């Protein structure tokens, strides 16, 4: 294992018991995240992206599999992780409206991690102001309540709170999907600037592939709890291999002719992601796949490395 791998996920599984049966939200995925990079995770809703992030963060205990952080295995539950480890890993959630306590002032919200981790003792207020400046918010926000600021600003507060404990890794779960493009641009640029300044590693989850193209260094695509393809970002967008990746790329609404050109030839989107309780046999994608073969209905394809760093899970490439 390389030293620069900050997170290593090995055959991770997370099942949920429901009244309808077992949901295999994450079903045996493996990937690594290198230090200082942004690893992007894409997929349709219900593909297991968020569950993966929550399991890495320890919110959910994995059903099976291992997660390594800087080379050592992570205790499964966040409760068993020492404070020093929790300090290193932070998360920003999709809906800033519900991830900030509406009854606390923004100053108090950002200050809490400082108190928990005993950082900047005696100068917490000043540190909160520095954090607000770091994310580009006015320092007088310190006395405001979350209800008094806009959605994008709330998300910047959530980012400042995540930065407060001085982590080395942040999981960003659809941080801009509830926001407009111009606010999105502001938040993404803030995140990228801070990443460079502090040498942070991001796990970036989004269903917006155009956004992913511009933020991630490597991309993994998930479908029904399985990883279908992992590649360097430029390779992923210029040489997509999996039929599902091609379908997704082809469905993206774009605004310029140059973008139209790099989209795979029209692959008509068809079908919907099946119920995770009642998954198809063989390859989970076969009922929607235009290249479906006999073997796809029976056997789940293995993940193979087609070229250096480009992994795909499809019978077309085995």
């Amino acid at each position, binding site marked *: 294992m390389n030293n620069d791998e900050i997170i290593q996920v090995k055959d991770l599984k997370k099942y949920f018991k429901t009244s309808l049966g077992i949901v295999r939200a994450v079903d045996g995925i493996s990937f690594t995240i290198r230090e200082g990079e942004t690893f992007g995770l894409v997929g349709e809703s219900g593909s297991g992206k968020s569950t993966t992030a929550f399991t890495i963060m320890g919110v959910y205990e994995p059903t099976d599999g291992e997660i390594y952080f800087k080379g050592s295995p992570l205790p499964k539950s966040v409760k068993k992780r020492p404070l020093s480890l929790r300090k290193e890993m932070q998360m920003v959630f999709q809906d800033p409206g519900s991830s900030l306590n509406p009854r606390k002032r923004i100053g108090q919200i950002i200050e809490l991690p400082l108190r928990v981790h005993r950082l900047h003792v005696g100068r917490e207020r000043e540190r909160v102001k520095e954090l607000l400046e770091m994310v580009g918010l006015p320092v007088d926000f310190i006395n405001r309540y979350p209800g008094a600021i806009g959605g994008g600003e709330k998300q910047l507060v959530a980012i400042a709170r995540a930065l407060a404990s001085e982590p080395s890794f942040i999981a960003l779960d659809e941080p801009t999907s509830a926001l407009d*493009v111009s606010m*999105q*641009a502001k938040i993404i640029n803030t995140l990228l600037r801070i990443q460079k300044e502090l040498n942070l590693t991001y796990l970036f989850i989004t*269903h917006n592939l*155009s956004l992913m193209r*511009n*933020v991630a260094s490597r991309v993994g695509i998930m479908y029904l709890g399985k990883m279908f393809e992992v590649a360097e970002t430029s390779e992923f967008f210029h040489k997509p291999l999996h039929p599902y990746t091609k379908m997704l790329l082809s469905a993206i609404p774009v605004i310029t002719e140059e*973008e139209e050109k790099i989209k795979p030839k029209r692959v008509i989107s068809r079908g919907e992601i099946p119920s995770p309780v009642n998954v198809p046999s063989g390859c989970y994608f076969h009922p929607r796949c235009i290249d479906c073969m006999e073997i796809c209905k029976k056997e789940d394809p293995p993940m193979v490395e087609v070229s250096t760093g480009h992994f795909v899970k499809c019978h077309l490439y085995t």
Partner: protein
Amino acid sequence: MSENLLEVKDLYVNYKIYEGILKVLNGVNLTVKKKEKVGLIGESGCGKTTTMKAIMRILPDNALIPNGNIFYKGRDILKMSDDEIQKIRRENISMIFQDPTAALNPVLTVGAQLMDVIKYSTDEELTKREIRELAIKALKDVALPDPERILKNYPIMLSGGMRQRICIAMALISAKELLIADEPGTNLDVTIQDQILRLIGRLVEERGISVILISHALGAVKGLVDKVYVMYAGDIVEMAPTEKLFSDPIHPYTQALFKTVPKLTGGGIPEAIKGRIPDYINPPKGCRFAPRCIHAMPICMKEKPPLKNIEGEREVACFLYE
């Protein structure tokens, strides 16, 4: 083709709230011709949905319309009696809402809701059997498999994409002339959104009706509509044929907006437009975009630029083109 089906003229809408009066629509002008497909884009809070709700006359009680007309085939919707507008909503204009889950009644079956719409969409007395057959046909038209079963299902038993298809089926029954689609795929996955948009495009074409497609996903309208209106803070700032608008936007807001959209070709994300959407209680006096505009001139702070026709087929509200 040249006949205007719908003409919104100088429409103002205010909302009365505890803190004061929100002056949201600031003189909106837009026209929809027969069989025309029109896009309306802009960021959330710019008044897209308010404009559409005014057309349907379904604005909330605290909304005031101090000025403006909405002509539908030459008659002002705002001056119609309740019976008249109801008849139009039953037979001529219909709307698809962004969130299909909220648009459907959770305690009634899809069949009960759909058949109700069919029953009231015509003055003819239909038998139960005829209504049922029309309901099945409506579901088949939106490419839903096994319509007989779906009629018996409750909305919760169906996926988001299927629910949106049902809303489209319902809207199309009443939209004999104009369909308003308010962000029809926004909450859905990109592959499902793609399917929904293509479906709407096909059905509108087949039936020869007009459509207004609202979206803040700019690319979503591109493949579907003939012309696009761009809205900013209650103003129409620009209108152009679709290809022209996307290849050569001329209003500074449209230009800035297009720049902030992440491109599939990469290259990073340019800086966001500085500033924020104005406060609707005290909106800027002149052009509402002026405080954020890189080309702002002294006149922009004082006067509201009128929407002017240029090059024959496009309109822009900006003093740069005076």
